[in-house]
């Protein structure tokens, strides 16, 4: 026995044998999709982390080039499947700017209302899954209870729970359904109380605080340099929200605050997103109370599909319908970069038109792609368990990363 104990380990290889390469994913529950992170470990400490993406690459940008402008809308749903209306909105705004369309106030306000509900929807999924990753099981059930209500509202509007495609170039797909005010009102009346419930479960929960405070913090300069946007950068102290700095779709008419924190850690990101939920609820309330009357689509006969009744009585309407459905509408040559604040950060569509009915090139500047790039900087030198918290706080959607 003693011989064995005293036998010296070969000194030259001692440090190498302790290193270990660990594949996290592509099928790991905390990656929320198909992400592979190759971790190089020294014991529990991460020396190097390398995200490997592309598992969900479906060539959406290529696909857009062979669709007409209106046919691209359902593809944008599938980019970020938790914030599909934000993607619909961003794409429609870009094409509308190319066309020079004026969108009526009712459509603009309805878009604000529904994108804010989308933000709530997305943040609820983030909070539920982030908490369950760290071990707080019940928060998930609470969050998905409210998410179900939001999805019912989406279903009411568009007939779909997730892939809504409700915003179209020129306005909305359909008139708002009967009784929508009641459904939104009932939800938004209860929602602030529900946020209090989540906070009761987490904010002062010692386990939650220990797992998140001081974890995966990074200085603001580094985050900016790495291309990070959205709640992550607001949690590091930068007061920047595209809804305020470059308002679109009448956001300048709404009153809300942009929550910021300075710690820049996982807990600060949690606080920022919780506060954002409260602010979004405020916006939804204002949009509901002040919803203007009027048309829900722009007066652009060559772009917006005519009403069914008109098609039966007016020849022009029938011709327009035929032309839009068969060949689409031509968009003047040019290019536009339209950015919006999606739940995850700066979402932008760069649309290049060559004057035909199909986009020449669409580049989607998706927030998850930019944010995920910062993952190595967040976790290197930290413990392996912190990776789970860090990834949860990044709130990426792999469809949004890989497109």
């Amino acid at each position, binding site marked *: 026995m003693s011989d064995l104990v005293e036998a010296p380990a070969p000194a030259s290889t001692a440090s190498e044998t302790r290193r270990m390469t660990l594949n996290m994913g592509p099928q790991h529950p905390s990656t929320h999709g198909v992400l592979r992170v190759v971790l190089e470990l020294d014991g529990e400490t991460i020396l190097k982390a390398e995200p490997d993406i*592309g598992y969900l690459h479906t060539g959406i940008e*290529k696909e857009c080039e062979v669709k007409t402008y209106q046919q691209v809308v359902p593809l944008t749903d599938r980019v970020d499947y938790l914030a599909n209306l934000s993607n619909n909105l961003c794409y429609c705004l870009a094409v509308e700017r190319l066309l020079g369309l004026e969108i009526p106030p009712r459509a603009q306000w309805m878009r604000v209302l529904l994108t804010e509900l989308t933000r709530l929807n997305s943040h609820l999924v983030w909070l539920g899954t982030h908490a369950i990753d760290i071990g707080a099981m019940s928060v998930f059930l609470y969050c998905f209870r409210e998410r179900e209500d939001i999805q019912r509202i989406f279903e009411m509007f568009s007939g779909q729970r997730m892939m809504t495609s409700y915003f179209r170039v020129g306005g909305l797909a359909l008139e708002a359904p009967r009784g929508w005010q009641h459904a939104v009102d009932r939800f938004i009346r209860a929602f602030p109380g529900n946020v209090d419930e989540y906070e009761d479960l987490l904010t002062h929960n010692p386990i939650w605080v220990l797992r998140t405070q001081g974890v995966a913090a990074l200085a603001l300069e580094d985050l900016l340099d790495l291309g990070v946007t959205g709640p992550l950068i607001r949690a590091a102290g930068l007061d920047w929200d595209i809804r305020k700095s470059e308002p679109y779709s009448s956001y300048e008419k709404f009153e809300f605050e942009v929550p910021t924190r300075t710690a820049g850690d996982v807990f600060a990101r949690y606080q920022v997103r919780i506060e954002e939920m409260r602010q979004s609820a405020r916006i939804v309330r204002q949009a509901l109370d002040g919803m203007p009357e009027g048309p829900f689509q722009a007066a652009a006969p060559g772009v917006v599909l005519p009403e069914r009744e008109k098609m039966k009585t007016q020849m022009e309407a029938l011709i327009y319908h035929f032309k839009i459905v068969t060949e689409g509408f031509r968009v003047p040559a040019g290019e536009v970069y339209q950015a919006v604040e999606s739940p995850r950060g*700066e979402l932008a569509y760069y649309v290049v038109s060559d004057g035909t009915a199909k986009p020449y090139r669409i580049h989607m*500047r998706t927030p998850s792609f*930019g944010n995920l790039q910062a993952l190595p900087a967040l976790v290197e030198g930290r413990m392996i368990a912190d990776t789970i918290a860090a990834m949860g706080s990044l709130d990426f959607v792999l469809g949004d990363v890989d497109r």
Partner: protein
Amino acid sequence: MLSEELKQVRAASALEAWDASAIQEARLERGEPILHIDPARIVAVCRFLKDQQQFVRLSAVTAIDWHPAEPRFEVVYQLHSLARQERLRLKCRVGGEQTEIDSVTGVWRAAGWYEREVFDLFGIGFRHHPDLKRIMMPADWQGHPLRKDYPIHGYKYSYAEE
């Protein structure tokens, strides 16, 4: 020479004062300034814009394929200045047998993945990129899907041959 409209864009006029020869073409489109930059000067221009014109953010790098025109590609840089709330788009025309341009990863680390994506999907090389390899497609993939001469389907597999 910049147009009167573009002289109002501070970054554009500052860049012209610093080095007018780097700007090949400039225009304002729907309120968005677009500057065509000499590809050989791109890193110096980006460095100037970041250090002296407060463009701390690089939002994205992408490319457009104008096949069959030559030079075939435009590499597009979307810059953003938070202090001034100003956006600026830089474009570089590149083409030829071996399409290459200098990497701007030394200026913004954010460029890393975006340049890898352009390399993967368009086949444009980035000199001095620290880790230039495919990002979306598998490592052994042939071809570059976002090129205009890459078919939308039926590339690898043909029913007719069965």
